[in-house]
């Protein structure tokens, strides 16, 4: 009915789709009873991590190399998109006995 507009919309949609990496996945990492699981997770640059805090305490996911530092409020979920490849050890700044590793492929 509105060929011009439809074409424009399609072009916009395609451009939009191209901006997002093709295989971006969402990975869930759970913090419960002061334990991070899985303790070792693998992901790719562009993937989203869903940090799920099931505790009544605030936690952080703080990379030892400074690549990320996410604070997760009690009983909340925070998300972050991975930007850099590498094997990253991270811990909770509030409870440094909570430790885990995230391996990020390019």
């Amino acid at each position, binding site marked *: 009915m509105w060929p011009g507009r439809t074409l424009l919309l399609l072009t916009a949609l395609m451009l939009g789709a191209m901006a997002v990496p093709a295989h971006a996945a969402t990975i869930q990492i759970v913090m419960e*009873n*002061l*334990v991070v699981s899985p303790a070792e997770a693998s992901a790719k640059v562009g993937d989203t991590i869903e940090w799920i805090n099931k505790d*009544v*305490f*605030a936690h952080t996911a703080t990379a030892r190399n400074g690549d990320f530092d996410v604070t997760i409020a*009690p009983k909340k979920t925070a998300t972050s998109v991975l930007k850099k490849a590498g094997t990253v050890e991270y811990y*909770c*700044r*509030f*409870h*440094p*006995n*909570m430790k885990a590793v995230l391996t990020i492929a390019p």
Partner: protein
Amino acid sequence: MFVRLSAAIAALSLLTGSALAQDAKPTDPQIAHIAYTAGVIDITAAKQAITKASNKDVKAFAEDMVRDHEAVNKQALDLVKKLKVTPEDNDTSKALSKQAADKLAELGKLKGADYDKAYVANEVAYHKAVNGALETQLIPSANNAELKSLLQTGLKIFQGHQQHAEHVAAGLK
């Protein structure tokens, strides 16, 4: 400083050790009271630190202590209500409170960096002592499975605090 710290650790371990030894196996209502008291003590110390500390990491640590220990104690209160258990005052709770009141007064006299160092050093020692009591006495003595599980979570939280305090202490040197 070193002498004072050693004295505090000795007093705490002596205290928890002897008070619990008299009463070889504390009952669940007593355990609940001891755990709750231990939390209240740390919250009181942290509130003093929030007003007195000059170092920002020390202040942030104290704020973490208030937040976590209030959360643990809320869980403890919810649990005793659910289990219809009335926490029972006992010699260990009394001794812990007395010791804490003395420490609070002692810390209250210090200022600036001296206060910061003494508060954090005491937090390391205090969490260490409480962890020892949890591991060797309170957790093994707890009968109720839910109480035991809450104490185990408490132990992990306290171990985390001890490491956090050690990290803050190292940053003060």
